[in-house]
């Protein structure tokens, strides 16, 4: 039954038929990926997220570390875009007070005090990309401090601005994912490659190891390891320790993919041809094998990233991962751990949105890549 048509042929109009025979593997992948609408949306979302990682300080307007006792647990304040019909973005002045009866903090906006927002305004000092010292921010105010005026997403119990903290958290959470996935990739390609290449006893041992790792519940294990990190370690040390802990378990799926491709490709004629023409083992691996399953590895890596991000977020949420004063999505969500705090300031749940969005985006892109990785398959 060969009545069904290969998807690539189907995807391309007949007059283009000739093109697919001369297209490179990457072109074919791109053509197929492009057709995957959700994957394209996901890709755009990921690009935006990583732009935010690069320009986290620029997009922030308040110093994420600065506490403002007078503006603690402040609900989000809207930005008014128009003033009397003209485009003049501004926020209203806010006064904090205590309710004399309940002692609860209440905030009152003053409709008469209009504080205009400026683009590329001056704010707290930072180093752009870690090298260029500047104090320009996307938005800010001319008079007074942004910390006391703008509250896009409200503040936490210490009066720190949630929007700016969210940006700082995005930087940590998304890079920690990248670093751990890179480590996992290394371990996965190493063990998967060994397993697929040598087979036999090596393969058996590595496969059993992977099975064992997969059948151990990861979170308790991570918790145990993370809790053992010395308390006096610096933020950077903890950051790398957490990366290593996360990637220790995360490599198994990548190893599985690499091994599977190795096993499948080892039997291919072009590998045999290379062997017969006297190519060395290393040349065969890096010139012939790796390029032909690169696309699969990229797809598997993309699907592994969200797992890493969830892991970091979960650990930090429990207080065992990234520790304050460092900021990550998990650290931010830790503030929302109890019902009391969420009931009092529900906006503390906002960091959940980027977590879900970025995981969705990575899953979409990963799915799209996986489908596209096999341009001749179904």
């Amino acid at each position, binding site marked *: *039954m*060969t*009545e069904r*048509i290969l998807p690539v*042929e*189907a*995807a391309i*109009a*007949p007059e283009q*038929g000739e093109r697919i025979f001369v297209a490179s593997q990457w072109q074919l992948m791109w053509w197929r990926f492009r057709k995957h609408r959700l994957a394209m949306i996901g890709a755009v979302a990921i690009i935006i997220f990583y732009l935010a990682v690069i320009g986290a300080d620029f997009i922030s307007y308040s110093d994420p570390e600065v506490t403002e006792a007078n503006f603690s647990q402040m609900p989000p304040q809207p930005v008014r875009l128009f003033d009397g019909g003209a485009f003049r973005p501004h926020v209203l002045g806010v006064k904090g007070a205590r309710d004399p009866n309940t002692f609860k903090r209440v905030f009152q906006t003053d409709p008469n005090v209009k504080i205009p927002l400026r683009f590329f305004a001056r704010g707290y000092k930072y180093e752009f990309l870690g090298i260029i010292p500047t104090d320009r921010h996307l938005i800010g105010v001319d008079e007074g401090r942004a910390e006391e005026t703008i509250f896009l997403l409200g503040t936490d119990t210490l009066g720190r601005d949630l929007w700016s903290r969210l940006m700082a958290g995005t930087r940590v959470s998304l890079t920690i994912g990248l670093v751990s996935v890179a480590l996992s990739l290394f371990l996965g390609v190493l063990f998967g490659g060994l397993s697929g290449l040598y087979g036999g006893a090596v393969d058996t041992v590595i496969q059993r190891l992977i099975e064992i790792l997969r059948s151990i519940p990861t979170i308790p294990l991570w918790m145990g390891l993370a809790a053992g990190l010395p308390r006096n370690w610096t933020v950077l040390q903890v950051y790398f320790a957490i990366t290593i802990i996360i990637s220790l378990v995360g490599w198994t799926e990548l190893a599985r993919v690499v091994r599977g491709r190795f096993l499948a490709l080892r039997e291919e004629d072009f590998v045999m041809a290379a062997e017969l023409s006297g190519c060395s083992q290393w040349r065969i691996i890096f010139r012939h094998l790796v390029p032909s399953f690169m696309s699969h590895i990229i797809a598997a890596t993309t699907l592994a990233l969200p797992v890493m991000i969830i892991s970091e977020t979960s650990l930090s949420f429990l207080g065992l991962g990234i520790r304050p004063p460092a900021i990550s999505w998990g650290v931010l969500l830790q503030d929302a751990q109890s019902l009391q705090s969420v009931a009092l300031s529900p906006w503390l749940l906002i960091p959940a949105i980027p977590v879900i969005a970025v995981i969705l985006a990575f899953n979409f892109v990963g799915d799209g890549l996986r489908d596209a990785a096999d341009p001749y398959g179904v």
Partner: protein
Amino acid sequence: MENEEQPILSVRNLKTFFFMDEGTVRAVEDASFDVEPGKTLGIVGESGCGKSVTVRSILRIVERPGRIVGGQILLYRNAAGDRPGHVDLTQLEANGPEMLAIRGDEIALVFQEPMTSLSPVHTIGNQLIEAILLHRQVSRREAREIAAELLHQVGIPRPAGRLEEYSFQLSGGLRQRAMIAIALSCDPRLLIADEPTTALDVTTQGQILDLLRSLQEERGMAIILITHDLGVIAEMADDVVVMYLGQTVEKGPVDDIFHAPKHPYTQSLLQSIPSIHSRPRVNLPTISGSVPHPYNRPSGCPFHPRCPEYIVGTCETRAPSLAPVGERQEASCFLYEDA
């Protein structure tokens, strides 16, 4: 007897299209043929010519997005009481009770891949007994006995024990025999064998073909045999239908087709068979070009781009239709239009 004249199945101008997002694939464009009772009809053609879709259309098991869009498939029966003499299968509901009663009971199917045609997680007996219970009013115990008897008839040794076995425990030849047993379970009047021997080695092929022939003699059932192997056709078929791109291009008795092929496609096909009379070290004639892309169906006669006798100005503009070219032979070609 008038039954001699009446076919048991008559396919007329069948069209089955697949409606894909990217366009419509005309898998069967214009297929017409008759199946005589007790005879074997061979359908031959290159892969992708619509043979399999044609028989799936007969059984009404074409999968979406495929659909029968035109033509008739007439199944003839002995008229009795108010029962009509024939029924048009294209008019029945694909999964309605009438069609279910015909499928497996009056018309049965043997498939090309014995490896995958049987469920990997059910025993042979389970699938065989299921087929028997579905169409016959017998108890489970009786069905079991019938099943063992069927396995015996198709030449499977130790039939009672085999009922408990799974398909992966049988060899390819035995699997195909088991498939045939399932197909025969309800004594069908028409057996459709879709490339029944393609996946088997040559010796087993011969055995399976012998089995089909002897079963046909015993039961007097008609067979539609689909294959791309002209040798099998020569050995087995009484009549032949040649298909190209979903169209019947020529049909007729096997001797006429082999000795006096009329359609250029049939002629090219026959020339491309190696024979012991071929001169050594001479290239076999091949058909020039390749089967067109399914979305790229040629206009007019679908064979014209590859045809050695292409009549410029006619073949690419109009589609020929089947016309008699001999006593019982018909071809769809402009070469014979005025003859």
